[in-house]
């Protein structure tokens, strides 16, 4: 008796969920169209890429574009530059954001309130306003058009400091108080007790920084004198601006350029999405 009731109740329920799911999957695939198109095009032979009428699915597959991209443009250089830029910014940012955030959350020092107010104000400043003075300054000390020049101004930012401060404020004080009573130095408390506890926050912030800088266009575009010195988004954009576009080649390069961030995201998707939900709500 009980089983027939659940059966009659759950069956239309399941059909309902299935129908909704089919609608959802169609929606999801439609949204993924540019990415699907990019991947399919990358594997199509050139004749199929430019065929009319265009067709979504490839008729035959080739790896030719993936082999050619390395010679058509300095693709390995672009890749290396992007790894150094995004990786360098991420590592330095995590270091400086967490130290500054900790100082603002836990230490007492003169001018602390002034520093905090300045950081709140900087949170509201669009970074484009700082482009011209930064470019000018880096140019006058010979760093314009170099990777260090690209990295240095990004080594810490208001958002990262604020994010870490909020996290440290949420930690209980007991542990550090106990360590302080035992005579541990502030540096020791920060590096041995606090930082291990902050791993989830650092991971989330790290992905934010990495993804943002890996994907960024405007800053690397300004800070690279030529394609050789650019990151993937900036270098590929310059390339497209100067040459007749071979879409097969461009899509193969694009697939390779997007891959690290997409894989990184799929691996730690849960904490990344949770990070957005919580920082969004403040």
């Amino acid at each position, binding site marked *: 008796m009980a089983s027939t009731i659940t059966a009659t109740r759950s069956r239309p329920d399941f059909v309902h*969920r299935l129908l*909704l*799911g089919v609608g*959802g*999957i169609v*929606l*999801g695939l439609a*949204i*993924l169209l*540019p*990415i699907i198109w*990019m991947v399919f*095009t990358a594997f199509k032979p050139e004749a199929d890429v*430019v*065929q*009319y*009428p*265009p*067709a*979504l699915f490839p008729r035959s597959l080739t790896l030719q574009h993936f082999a050619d991209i390395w010679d058509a443009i300095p693709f390995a250089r672009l890749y290396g530059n992007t790894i150094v830029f995004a990786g360098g910014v991420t590592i330095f940012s995590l270091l400086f954001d967490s130290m500054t955030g900790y100082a603002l959350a836990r230490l007492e020092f003169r001018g602390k309130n002034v520093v905090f107010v*300045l950081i*709140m104000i900087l*949170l*509201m*400043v*669009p970074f*484009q*306003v*700082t*482009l*011209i*003075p930064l*470019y*000018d300054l880096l*140019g006058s000390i010979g760093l314009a058009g170099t990777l260090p020049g690209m990295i240095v101004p990004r080594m810490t*930012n*208001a958002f990262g400091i604020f994010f870490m401060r909020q996290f440290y404020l949420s930690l209980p004080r007991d542990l550090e108080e106990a360590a302080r009573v035992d005579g541990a130095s502030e540096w020791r408390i920060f590096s041995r007790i606090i930082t291990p506890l902050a791993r989830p926050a650092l991971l989330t912030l790290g992905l934010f920084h990495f993804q943002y800088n890996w*994907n960024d*266009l*405007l800053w690397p575009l*300004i800070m690279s004198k030529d394609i050789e010195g650019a990151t*993937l*988004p900036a270098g*590929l*954009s310059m390339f497209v601006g100067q040459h007749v576009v071979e879409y097969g080649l*461009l*899509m193969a390069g*694009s697939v390779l*350029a*997007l891959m690290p*961030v*997409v894989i990184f*995201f*799929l691996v730690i998707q849960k904490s990344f*999405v949770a990070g*957005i*939900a919580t920082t*969004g*709500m*403040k």
Partner: protein
Amino acid sequence: MVWPLVQSAYLSFTEYNRIQAARWVGVHNYVELVQDEQVWNALGNTAVYAVVVTPITVLLALAFAIFLNRPMVGREFVRTAIFMPFIVSMAIISFAWSFLLDANIGLVTYWLGQVGFVTEQGWLTDPQLAMPAVMLVGVWKSVGFYMVMYLAGLQSIPTELYEAARVDGASAWSRFRHITWPLLANQTMLVSIMAAIATIQVFDQIYVMTRGGPFFSTETLVMLIYRVGFQDLRLGYGSAVSWVLMILVFGLSMLQFGYFRKRAVTY
């Protein structure tokens, strides 16, 4: 970190091209700016972009969130798919969009042609259609991000409220109107301001897909700052233009800050 801001303010009162030293010109740049048709054009394009893209993105994000808050087959896949555009590089995915919207061999151009929407000059080369095209890409890119924020809000609404409403025989629309919408008001406020701030700073897909053209029909404020500051090398005037952006973004941010501070007090 504050220095670039101060320096930018200083430069906006000078004439400077990096070859000769900066020359103080007082408010001259700002006088020129007010009379500059290119500035008004860029400001207008930015305003149109923001006013169209912000509400569409926010409402779509809400609709997707409500849809994906129900149990369904393959829900994780759908959520990830909608969020994915936010993860990938806007510049790089814009190459794929340019190809999809290509006048001759673009797949979307072709599909739209099949259902009767034929463009004379192609999406990105028609001054009438280039703006809608970059708007579409803008909505596509960020809707998943705001959807995630809405999903967090939806999950904080107690399900008892909906059950009680259902017992009272409330329709789906009135449940949305009287429970979901008011309880998500804060989320909507936050998401709308964030989206407005982001749209005012639009650059990447426009740079890749149209370079601000055709005939400056998609040149936004940041595109103009880039052109004036880094292509014409008018660093003083470019700084002045960037302060227009500064005032817009800063104003909206203050609004956001004030709104949430007020709320914190009333708790």
